[in-house]
């Protein structure tokens, strides 16, 4: 009797477990079409948006009615639609979490919780390794599943969507044909999600895959409902291959090490008092070679930045061994993240309008990298030198207390701006004697003209101009009628 009871109880536990066990994912039930309409703001006329465009990609269905896509798929989206490949049923979706740097976004249907209930959610497989055969999953336009096998070749820390954000990416070889204009493709290994294919070169037949390990990191971060983002060390470094330099630093032959050439304020390294001139020898016991790589058990030599960005979370402790003035030292560091919006010059700007404020036709904006990129593909040589310099060395301005760099982007010819029509791309220092440290300061200062005039000071020529405050107010009212809004401060 007793034995029987035990047997029953075992069965009693195991049966529900069995029924909860996920059915393996399949192309037509686990991959979903994502159609987005996107429209970004016009940075030259920040009160308006540019032309809209559409993008079609594929998302991976995840448990709890979520869909994973690349951030690229949904940036500046005005309308997102999920479409089932088999039935062509559609639902409107929204972005729950997006990380532009990691290039990942999580979507869910709006007002239709059951929309995805007939789908088979993916499980993640984070154990990719070289020579693995994986499949890119997609459909023909008519909904017929198409799978293409590709072979994993190597892992590398590379930039994906944002210039400055580098993450582990996996390369796979083999021809992949894009069907129905797909932009992002789920990649499966044994019917589990191994990553998202984010780019493919038809010339070399090489696919770049954002691996499941990064996706897992992203999803874990979303679990508590508050997304923090990937931590950053906040240093610039150089290699230590040069023998003379190694001798000078008193670096041991067997140690590798990277030389810290700059420490960025507000990030992890600065908080842990790591200094320019230190040599980082190891992180959490993993030695860093003189090129800046550590030995990854799966991918071999990988940039040590993966130890920070790919493996650890914001708030995690980290043991860093450094060499400072010839002495080895262990530093306990707590990883923090300096958010993109804390930078003097916004590295990217999505899903929001650029901040601006107009006074009588003078258009003030916060300088951002997207603004610099308006100067064309060769913006790094064509954009105004002072602004490029501020981008390269923000500490020049940050130490003056500036949170943002406010510039006069252009001048709309109005009766108030007579004689100033040609002024543009000037760094603003003060308005009505108020130091301008962000766009809110412009708005604040605009309410305090002295003797009926606004006094505006620039860093460079012509240094000083005045506007008639009463007339400017009237022009602003007229402009508002014409262009809708004359400021956006948030």
């Amino acid at each position, binding site marked *: 009797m007793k034995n029987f009871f035990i047997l029953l109880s075992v069965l009693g536990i195991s049966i529900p477990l069995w029924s909860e066990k996920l059915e393996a994912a399949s192309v037509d039930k686990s991959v979903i079409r994502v159609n987005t309409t996107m429209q970004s703001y016009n940075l030259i006329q920040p009160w308006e948006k540019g032309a809209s465009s559409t993008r079609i990609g594929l998302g991976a269905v995840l448990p709890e009615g979520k869909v994973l896509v690349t951030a690229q798929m949904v940036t500046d989206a005005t309308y997102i639609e999920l479409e089932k490949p088999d039935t062509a049923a559609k639902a409107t979706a929204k972005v729950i979490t997006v990380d532009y740097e990691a290039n990942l976004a999580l979507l869910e249907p709006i007002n239709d919780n059951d929309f995805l209930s007939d789908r088979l959610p993916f499980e993640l497989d984070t154990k990719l390794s070289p020579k693995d055969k994986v499949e890119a999953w997609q459909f023909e336009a008519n909904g017929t599943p198409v799978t293409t096998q590709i072979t994993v070749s190597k892992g590398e820390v590379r930039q994906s969507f944002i210039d400055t954000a580098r993450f582990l990416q996996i390369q796979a070889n083999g021809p992949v044909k894009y069907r129905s204009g797909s932009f992002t493709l789920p990649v499966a290994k044994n019917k589990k999600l191994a990553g998202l294919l984010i780019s493919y070169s038809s010339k070399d037949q090489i696919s770049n895959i954002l691996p499941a390990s990064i996706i897992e990191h992203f999803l874990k971060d979303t679990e508590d409902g508050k997304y923090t983002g990937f931590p950053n060390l906040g240093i610039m470094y*150089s290699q230590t291959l*040069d023998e003379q330099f190694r001798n*000078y630093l008193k670096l041991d032959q067997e140690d590798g090490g990277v030389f810290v*050439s700059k420490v960025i304020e507000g990030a992890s390294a600065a908080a842990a008092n790591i200094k320019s001139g230190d040599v980082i020898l190891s992180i959490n016991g993993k030695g860093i070679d003189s090129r800046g790589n550590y030995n990854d058990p799966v991918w071999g030599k990988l940039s040590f930045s993966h130890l920070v960005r790919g493996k650890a979370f914001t708030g995690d402790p980290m043991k860093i061994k450094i060499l400072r003035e010839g002495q080895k030292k262990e530093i306990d560091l707590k990883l923090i993240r300096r958010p993109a919006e804390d930078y003097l010059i916004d590295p990217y700007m999505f899903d929001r309008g650029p901040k601006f404020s107009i006074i009588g036709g003078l258009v003030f904006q916060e300088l951002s990298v997207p603004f610099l990129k308006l100067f064309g593909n060769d913006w790094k040589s064509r954009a105004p*030198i002072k602004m490029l310099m501020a981008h390269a060395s923000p500490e020049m301005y940050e130490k003056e207390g500036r949170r943002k760099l406010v510039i006069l982007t252009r001048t709309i010819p109005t009766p108030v701006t007579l*004689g100033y029509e040609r002024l543009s791309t000037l760094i603003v220092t003060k308005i009505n004697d108020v130091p301008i440290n962000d766009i809110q300061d412009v708005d604040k200062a605009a309410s305090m003209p002295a003797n009926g*005039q606004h006094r505006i000071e620039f860093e460079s*020529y012509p*240094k000083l101009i005045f506007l008639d405050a009463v007339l400017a107010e009237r022009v602003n009212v007229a402009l508002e009628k014409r262009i809708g809004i004359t400021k956006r401060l948030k």
Partner: protein
Amino acid sequence: MKSPFFSFIITICACALAAAQDNNEKDSAHQANNSSRYEAVVRIENSSLNPDYRNPWNTGRDSGGNGTGWLVSENKFLTNAHVVSNSRIIYIKKVGDAKPYRARIVHIAHDCDLAMLELEDPSAFKGVTPFEIGKLPQLDTTVKVIGYPIGGERISITSGVVSRVDFLSYSHTSVDLHLTIQIDAAINPGNSGGPVIQNGKVVGVAFQGYSGNIAQNTGYMIPTPVIRRFLKDVEDGNYDHYVDLSMSDFPLINPAQRKALGLANDGIGIMVAAAEEDGSAGGILQTGDVLLAIDGRSVKSNGLINYEGEDVNMNEIVERKFAGDVIELKIWRQNKSIDAKVTLKRFLPYLIAAKKYDEKPRYVMFSGLVFQPLDRNLMAAHGIKSLQIRYHFDSYVSADIYKDRPEIIVLTSILPDSINSYFSNFTHSIVDEVNGVKVKTLKDVHNALAKDKGDYIVISLLGNGRPIVIERAKVEAAQKRIQEKYNVINDHYLGD
């Protein structure tokens, strides 16, 4: 007056014209007869040696060109500075005389593109009457341009009308602005330095034109006020250059701007945007001041003054002065009128942006690293794109960089050797310190490197936390090896 702006104007010296020359002997007698009234107009042939800023230890590249000149007084010929720049040998040829006569430079003024030459043996021009210098010609009057432009060896004459009097950039240095007269006579390479004649007198020196794809029929000549100033400046045997107020101004058109500065809406006064502290007006003018009058002449809100019945740029007053001269300024500051006297002088920091001539490039070559002071020639020769350097070049004056670093020393190139094999990423950087000594001039680099102290030489670079480190013990052998390998005869040249 200096301008930081790039000019599209091209100088018109026929450089390195190697075209086959048509020597038709049969016609020469006839030609001499016909052209004898032009015998004060000469052809100038210049063999030049253009400095090699990429390999500054080399002597340079041989080149040459020809232009025109004219007799201004006994054995004194005037031409453009750009005709005889970087000169090694100069020959003057007379109308109808095949013999070249060796000439030398007496004075050369790059800032106004004029030069004075003389013959080693003046006898060939005995009895030739020099030209007289006339006045500023009126608009819409006819002038003749005489010279030796491309298309042949013999004298050529074109004519046109005076189209415009303006204050423009002289492209020879590209930073100097002076009075200029635009004419619609054809001015071509080789015309440079030639006289522009009206009523038998010289009223200008042909010197530059727009290239054909930008504008048509726009030739420029240096007018007589500039020529006279040059002749007066060299009277004491030295050329002392133009002087400068060293300030930037902003037109006072906006009514609010005028009101805020306490000015009536009468179209008088121009705002001072900035005055260079080390310049003539430094400590006298400040941002937000209004210049009401200069030497008693009202300054209009667009920066023009009335001078000899014409509206001319207010700098015309300064243009005709010499170093040490004093001008009077009427300044409006905080609703009060102030009279100030300004002693005029040159402002050398502007020259960083000027094209330079007749200068041997300075450098220090150490362990294969080549250090050179930053200027326009260097930027052009090395095709420098580094943001850090472009910023220092661009803001040298406006951000007062010149005060902190009179010379910006650039690591321009590296002669590869085992001692510097990991240094290639450091080219086109600015040297901040050498062994802890802040670098302000090329001499500083040379002296700091020469000091024999410590095991390492540490060269820190601006904007890069990673210094260049060289083991001192390896230096001597490397220096010898590199000099031999790359044929660097002298490892430095610091100037005279």
